[in-house]
């Protein structure tokens, strides 16, 4: 019997969008008697990377002693701490890696001292030390989401999505302390010299994923128009080709290939979006929501939708920009984010900051919950995902990158067992976590940034 492959009720609620949708992976698409790994349901590990600046209360000396972030116990019997509490329902999926340092963000020369806020975001997923410059000659490293997307991106309509929840920052100009804004405004680097802009507007993300149009009907109408127009281009370019000389013909042939690739993408999205008769596409978001809480959850929803429909397998999200002084009303903490991180080592302020950290973790728990509740192939999306969440800052009060808070959530197709707390040797670079993530995702590489090895998880 093949009961295990027969998921009947697979509906997820797209909360932020307020509409019910059903899943794209049709049972009809999984032929009943083929081995699972050969079908469309073969696991394709998704990677979501989420960065938050300013570190954690649990990284300060007092906070560490109080175990605001890192649990006391190592191994599988760890307890849930003040900041990590929202992750409790997902214990089986959670891997906490304590006591690594984002050494790439440390100042390497006297001039670099103090510039930590302009430098650290760039280090989070590259493990590299950004070059001090305000000009166009910026240089960092390739980030793990992009390394992975370069491997899996061609199998999906969109290679990766990059999102942020705060002001769109320009990738040029100076952000102070003699560093280019580019380091502060993105965590995704396609190469050491190619920073990728992060999209703020959920609507733009939505359009990239599902097409343009307010309603499902409108989108479908436009997609079919887009396709017929691309068809027409193909016909016409082929005719035009006949009157050109050989090098131009080759150029147009190249153009035609790319147009066909576009058609393929549209067809793929079309197929994934419309084949299910029950499927009801969500209404496109209007723009940037007023509330941060709503905004970040909307971005999480879009990530889940994209993973679910296999439109992309890679996402990255900046939850805030460095030195953000946003106040998060839902957290119950009234101190602005940046001021809160400069707690002056006062115990009560460290505790308050740890509570703010808990609120941020709770929004990630929202994503985790959505992933877990979304069936995917032989399990749920969380089984097939690896979510990396953390900060390149440790004790923000003194701009220190020691004991940076980092967790991994998800089983990554069985590569991560979960329910684990690992404490690293003091001085271990967080790039070791990045390398570990890469290897778990099946990428053969020996080092990334300043990594010295991997973490046993």
């Amino acid at each position: 019997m093949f009961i295990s492959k027969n998921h009947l009720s697979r509906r997820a609620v797209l909360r932020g969008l307020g509409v019910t949708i059903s899943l794209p992976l049709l049972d009809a698409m999984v032929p009943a008697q083929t081995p699972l790994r050969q079908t469309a349901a073969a696991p394709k590990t998704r990677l979501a990377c989420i960065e938050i600046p300013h570190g954690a209360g649990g990284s300060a000396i007092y906070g560490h002693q109080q175990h605001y972030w890192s649990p006391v116990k190592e191994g599988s019997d760890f307890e849930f701490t003040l900041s990590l509490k929202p992750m409790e329902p997902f214990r089986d999926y959670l891997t906490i890696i304590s006591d690594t340092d984002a050494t790439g963000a440390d100042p390497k020369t006297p001039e670099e001292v103090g510039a930590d806020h302009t430098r650290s975001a760039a280090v989070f997923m590259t493990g590299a030390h950004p070059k001090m410059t305000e000009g166009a000659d910026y240089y960092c490293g390739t980030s793990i989401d992009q390394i992975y997307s370069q491997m899996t991106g061609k199998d999906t309509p969109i290679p990766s999505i990059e999102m942020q929840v705060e002001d769109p920052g320009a990738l040029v100009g100076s952000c102070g302390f003699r560093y280019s804004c580019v380091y502060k405004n993105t965590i995704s680097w396609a190469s050491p010299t190619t920073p990728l802009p992060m999209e703020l507007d959920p609507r733009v993300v939505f359009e990239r994923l599902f097409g343009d149009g307010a309603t499902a009907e409108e989108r479908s109408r436009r997609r079919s128009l887009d396709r017929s127009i691309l068809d027409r281009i193909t016909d016409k370019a082929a005719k035009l080709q006949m009157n050109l000389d050989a090098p131009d013909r080759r150029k147009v042939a190249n153009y035609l290939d790319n147009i066909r690739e576009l058609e393929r993408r549209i067809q793929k999205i079309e197929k994934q979006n419309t084949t299910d008769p029950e499927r009801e596409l969500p209404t496109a978001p209007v723009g940037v929501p007023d509330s941060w809480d709503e905004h970040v959850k909307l971005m999480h929803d879009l990530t889940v939708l994209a993973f679910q429909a296999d439109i992309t397998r890679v996402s990255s999200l900046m939850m805030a920009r460095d030195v953000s002084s946003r106040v998060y009303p839902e957290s119950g903490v009234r101190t602005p984010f940046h001021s809160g991180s400069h707690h002056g080592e006062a115990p009560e302020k460290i505790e308050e900051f740890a509570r703010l950290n808990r609120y941020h973790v709770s929004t990630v728990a929202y994503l985790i919950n959505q992933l877990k509740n979304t069936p995917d192939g032989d399990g749920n999306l969380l089984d097939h995902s690896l979510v990396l969440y953390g900060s390149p800052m440790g004790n923000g009060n003194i701009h220190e990158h020691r004991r940076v808070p980092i967790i991994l959530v998800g089983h990554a197709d069985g590569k991560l067992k979960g329910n684990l707390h690992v404490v690293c040797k003091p001085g271990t670079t967080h790039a070791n976590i990045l390398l570990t993530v890469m290897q778990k995702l099946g990428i053969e590489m020996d080092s990334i940034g300043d990594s010295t090895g991997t973490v046993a998880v």
Partner: protein
Amino acid sequence: MFYIGPQRSLMKILLATVAAVVLCPSLYSQSPGPSAAESRRVVISQYCAGCHNDQVKSGRLDLAGLDAAHVETAAPQWEKVIRKLRSGMMPPAGMKRPDAATTKAFITSLESALDQAGAAKPNPGRTAVHRLNRAEYKNSLHDLLGVEVDPAAYVPPDDASHGFDNMADVLSLSTTVMEGFARAASKISRLAVGDLEMNPVTETFVLTQGMSQMRHVEGTPFGTRGGIAVEHIFPVDGEYVFKMNFWHASTGGLFGLTTSGEQIEVSVNGERVALLDINPRLTTMEDVRTPPIKVKAGLQNVAAAFIQKAGGMVEDSLAPFKYALSDLTTGTVPGLTGLPHLRSFAISGPENVTGPGDTPSRRKIFVCKPASATEEVPCVRKIISTLARQAFRRPVAEADVRDLLNVYQSARDKGDFEFGITAVVQAIISDPEFIFRFERIPRNLKPGTNYRVTDLELASRLSYFLWSSAPDEQLLHVAVQGKLKDPIILEQQTKRMLADPKSEQLAANFAGQWLYLRNLRDVQPDNYIYTDFDDVLKESMQRETELFFDNIVHEDRNILDLLTADYTFINERLAEHYGIPNIVGSRFRRVPVTDENRKGLLGHASILTLTSLSNRTSPVARGKWVLENIIGTPPPTPPPNVPALMENSENQKRVSVRERMEKHRSVEPCASCHKIMDPIGFALENFDGVGQWRVRDSGFEIDASGTLLDGTPINGPVGLRSALVNNYSEAFIRTFTEKLTTYALGRGLEYFDMPVVRSIQRDASRRSNRFSEFVLGIVKSAPFQMRRVEETANSEARH
């Protein structure tokens, strides 16, 4: 062999063109017989063959082995020789050099031989199929549909080569680019038609921290300071909400919280639509927004600006910087006058749509409206014919109309008349004939044959050269009639187009790249050193040079004026920077330049800033800029492992840039190149890293003296300028000709282009080097009017 085309009359014109281009009687009066060849041989054996022989082969060049009697057999090598000699690079320092007269005669002899050979067997080269670059795409869409499009929102930046981003060979056709064009076509078609069912969207304009907002901003109402003015297209008649966010200190307080009673005004086309109070206790999460405001569809000038409360001096504990936001805490400290600064301005809508409105786009698209069902198809045909003609830059055939009518019909099945037209517009602006400039190859031509491009293709070459956009109806009309090939008509059209305001694209795209002005965008001088430098100043600098270049174009001036002009264009911010009194306001205006040091391009703050490092001047970069862009002899790239210049640091004796440079350039291999570049840069040392005049550097008196490679002693900018004008004006004109020809052709220059370049230069020199003479020379030249069948094309052409 020439391909002569179908009509006999073509031949006459073609020959006339070629003759005008390459024949120059004075130079060819004496034929280069054995004596000319012999004298060339003598020079080569005396001065060159010591290194450039079959044994040593310096620079992989064996001149002794080349046939000096028939230089055309090795034209690429001899063109290289000419270039090295003209720049004075050869023979190298320390080796025996011929006297100036001998060198000049030798160069002339080589050039006339090569030019004659070029005239006998011209090679116009070939330009590949040309994808519109960002600027061309934007302008073509504007002219076609009356829309303002930001291509950066859709396609990645264009790759550049040979110094320009309109080079056909490198304009990418990647999936990303094509996806961008497809996405743009879908959006723009709906925007242009006015989609009544469109969802409300929010468009946000972000102001950088470098934008100081203490004074009036161009485009905002008078009596206001700071803020932003945007040309925004409202897609339909409806209600829109305007939202504003402000700068805050990193601790959370509003920048300017110490000043109460600040107000911001939102205006549409200069008329106030809202006046809003700014609460000093505003947090970063809060914005200030207007109620829904009715706005008409189409392009409107929208501004959000602060009401100017007080003018004149403020008494502060510390003098505020012109770069107001250089330290965000200063806006929250009592005793310092910080005023609120706009950080972002968002337009959200439409809601309560009342109609598509009457927009320029709709007027361009809907040349008719069907009143009944029977009128529908004829009207659609009319709309299609009008748009397609301009978009495809050629007359429209019945097949084109039928093809697009199919697009209309299949969309019409799913929607109304307007939806069908939207589909037609989308199809037209996604069409390969819109996105590319194809040049068709006549049938049955042998590889290596030259042929004249069609009048329509010539019209596109011309308009994308001068306007970075498609031909207008007048040019198209002349081309359709087959008249454009007529040199008189061509000249008329060229002059008409140069006089048109659209030719300001030459300043933005040609001068912007030739003079590296576009690099200014990425320049960020060190705020600790240049405390007043902000983005307002940066933009003003770029504008000055663009306006100046545009003036040279429009007044058809001698291009040497670029180096010597005694006038420029400035606004208040720039006037302060230069120390010029009595210039008030953000508007640019022409002013005389009385300071000798400031005359011409080398006195422009733009050039001086973009050739500096963030924390100091770079005499090397300035020298290199002059060598590359003025004299036309780029220095070789530095060898690897060059030690960095020692930087001044704290607790150490400070040393001037010049003194540090001297140390660096005293040793080989650095010395040989630096002695070419540095003296030029040293002469400009009185201009600091942002182009302000100074007499001291790091406490030391500036020494702006030096000796150019040709031995001319110079001192300061005035000396440098007169040396350039006296000794290098020919080199400058040649450099300019080469750059402009490269830009016009959309391909890099080859050795076989050099006779044409020289002829354009010679002709223009005889007509006072007027800008239009260079343009006309290029436009009438063989490479601009003709094309060569690829040598390897034949084998594949049969398939």
